[in-house]
């Protein structure tokens, strides 16, 4: 377990180094995800313990957003002043984005879903 947690940390560290030195527009952890993904492609399978570590991290992904979410208290004044445009923009735009993306994915991808027949 700890061995594969170390692998994940190494991927993130490598990702941070790449993102900073090459001034990439994506953050270190996303680069780290790409590095680990490439590693899995090369290896051709997922080690059982790595699956366990990732399951533990992703199984409680919601928890990890709580500290940043509490940061809402730092901007209470601004959010209070602009509450109407902010809530309207967040709700309408997010629903619209989900609709546009899901419809495009479904239309462009229709033949594949029929082939698989499992979704």
């Amino acid at each position, binding site marked *: 377990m700890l061995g594969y947690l170390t692998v994940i940390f190494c991927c993130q560290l490598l990702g941070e180094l790449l993102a900073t030195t090459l001034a990439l527009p994506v953050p270190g952890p996303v680069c780290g995800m790409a590095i680990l993904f490439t590693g899995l492609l090369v290896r051709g399978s997922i080690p059982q313990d790595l699956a366990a570590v990732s399951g533990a991290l992703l199984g409680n992904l919601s928890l990890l957003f709580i*500290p940043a979410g509490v*940061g809402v208290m730092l901007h209470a004044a601004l959010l209070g002043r602009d509450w109407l445009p902010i809530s309207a923009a967040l709700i309408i735009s997010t629903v619209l984005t989900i609709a546009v993306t899901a419809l495009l*994915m479904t239309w462009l991808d229709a033949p594949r*879903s029929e082939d698989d027949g499992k979704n």
Partner: protein
Amino acid sequence: MRNLRDIWVYLSASPLLHLTLTLIAYQVGLFVYRRARLNPLLNPVLIGVVTVLVALLVTGTPYETYFNGAQFVHFLLGPATVALAIPLYRQVQIVRKSALAIIVSIVAGSLTASVSAVAIAWALGASHDTLLSIAPKSVTAPVAMGISERLGGLPSLTAVLVILTGIVGAMLGTYTMNALGIRDWSARGFAMGTASHGIGTARALQVNETAGAFSGLAMGLNALATALLLPLLWRLFF
């Protein structure tokens, strides 16, 4: 009485107290969410955040003190993002077959997310700071903060708007896609990750493994697409 106060001063200065508060708040959120059979409206992040907020307001604790303890949880966002490579790898065959759909959908989704948010906020008279900070709202927090800084917004306000967007998407995404008759798990997950990044991905993972993998993929791709497209778009219009 004096001893009790000393204990409180000691505890509130150590990371243990606010780390524990965060874990308890999450357990509260998870308990309610599970009791409601994963009803999206009872999002565990939302309940967890509100629980912590109430505790901090009641005890008069500033955010900085809270974050000193909570940062250990916050830190794990990085490794969790890296770990998204595993569900993604499990879907590699489907991803390869859907490459064209993925590229078109992510560009369209990225543009819809930022243009519609800025347009709506502007039409309703939002301040300049809000407009600049809301543009990258659908992108995962660290990238969104970077984009916001480049546009001249307030990165810390962007972080809050990003979290709120994630919660809104995780709450309303299921209903939106049911109304549109979208059944394919890959399309459902992909839309979730595009619009509401990691919080949408957390919801997708709770519902279906394929949806979770596509949501994680969309989150990463939308970070890339928005980071490349938004500054260009901004320069064209302003």
